[in-house]
């Protein structure tokens, strides 16, 4: 695709921004709710059926 130099720079900024946006969330500490769910998995794994109680 042929782009004007200005547009090309925009695409660099967009690409950089997108990665920063994703990384910003991905680097947050895992919220407690998620850790609770993991603990429920452990309990469930010990049950015979392995079902997670909602």
């Amino acid at each position, binding site marked *: *695709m042929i782009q004007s130099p*200005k*547009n090309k*720079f*925009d*695409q660099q*900024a*967009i*690409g*950089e*921004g*997108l*990665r*920063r*946006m*994703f*990384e*910003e*969330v*991905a*680097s*947050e500490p*895992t*919220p407690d*709710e*998620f850790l609770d*769910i*993991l603990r429920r*998995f*452990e309990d*469930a*794994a*010990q049950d015979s*059926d*392995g*079902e*997670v109680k*909602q």
Partner: protein
Amino acid sequence: VSDAARTLKVSDPARDRVFKAELTKLIPQLRAFARGLTGDPTAADDLAQEVMLKAWMARDSFDMGTNMKAWTFMILRNQFYSEKRRSWRQSPLDQEVAERTLEAHENPSAPLELNELRMGLAMLPVVQREALILIGAGGMAYEEAAQICGCAVGTVKSRVSRAREALAKILSQGDFVRDGASASEAMGDILAQADRLTKSR
């Protein structure tokens, strides 16, 4: 179901532990993908948690050693669309808010404000948004994204390229008006696809 097949279905504690450890590693990326799709931190975390539960329930059907990231992203995407199907008619379109808030970007070469980027993303048709998030933000391979979206590699490529173009326009002009007709057409396609996926399970 034969006895042998039934035996395989019984949860294996060692396998469960590996599965859980792998799933745990994916939480940050699931949250980031969900945030990108929904644009809303609370809705995104609800979605990501729902995906963890679904993944756990379906763990016996996961082929250990294959790509768990793609597998969970696929669950997340399907969950997102099935929730969206329930709510999208009632709720105002994302971009109405975005259009009111987004102002012209005066210097296209300056580092982007993430808020602007988020609002710009919200204005994209959802299939373009997800393609751009997977490829441009999440750093996935085109093949991986195609697997997740259930479409051809070429389709992902063209969606990403159209998304980039549209986003550049939105961000530099700040007055982009989405083509409502094609957007709802895309949504119709995606709902039909989600229907087929649900029925084939």
